[in-house]
């Protein structure tokens, strides 16, 4: 399968695709997405996201959901750094 894909995206013609394949990226999925319209991609994302959230809510405890939320906020802090100081009127 991998060899077939390497033939389909030869490095001389598709260097970025060949490099992506080497990293384990499924280039055939990208190729399928290119054929979709942006609106179709957006609809697909929202469907996936809705399903993911419903599955989480149905299968995880409140404590686990809270842990996910806290990790999300921590990742934001790590990425953006501290937020400017805000006082009670947000100013």
């Amino acid at each position: 399968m991998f060899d077939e894909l390497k033939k389909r995206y030869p490095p001389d013609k598709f260097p970025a695709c060949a490099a992506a394949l080497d990293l384990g990226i499924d280039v055939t999925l990208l190729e399928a997405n290119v054929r979709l319209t942006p609106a179709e991609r957006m609809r697909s994302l929202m469907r996936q996201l809705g399903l993911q959230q419903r599955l989480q809510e149905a299968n995880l405890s409140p404590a686990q959901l809270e842990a996910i939320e806290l990790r999300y906020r921590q990742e934001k802090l790590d990425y953006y750094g501290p937020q400017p100081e805000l006082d009670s009127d947000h100013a």
Partner: protein
Amino acid sequence: MPEQKSDELLRVLLDANVEFVVVGGIAAVAHGMDRSTKDLDVLLKMTAGNVARLLAALQPYHPKHLLRQDLGVIPIESSARLATFDFILLTTTIGRLDVLGTVEPVGRFADVEQVRLELFPGRSVAVLALEQLVAVKMASGRPRDLQDAHELRALLELSQAARPEFGDSD
């Protein structure tokens, strides 16, 4: 934890004529990347008027600072101060929104190359150009973003190959 309705948030911003460019994960998906992302990141034109439009549009959805929700709903009167921030992390009843004043290394709203993509039938949205999205992912340096950059480069190559001028004539 609110349900993330990024599509609805984008429609709210469009309806209110907020000036913004979609960046980050949703921009990558709009260009064709295979990714499930909860993040909606927008590069905003950080003027007091534009931030006021944003906050006014979000008032029905009770916008709060993600990391200071104890402060309550952000009033529109905060716009002038918030327009001086580099970023504003919001949470609303229809999901979260990361509002950025600058995106490294491409810069501020006026500096970036944007393309208009029809994310909703009949409605186009300004999205960061694919080439600049690659640059942003590369600049981040996080392993996950570097992997994304490779995926976006492959996507760029496939998109170019799909255009008529790169067609299968050979």
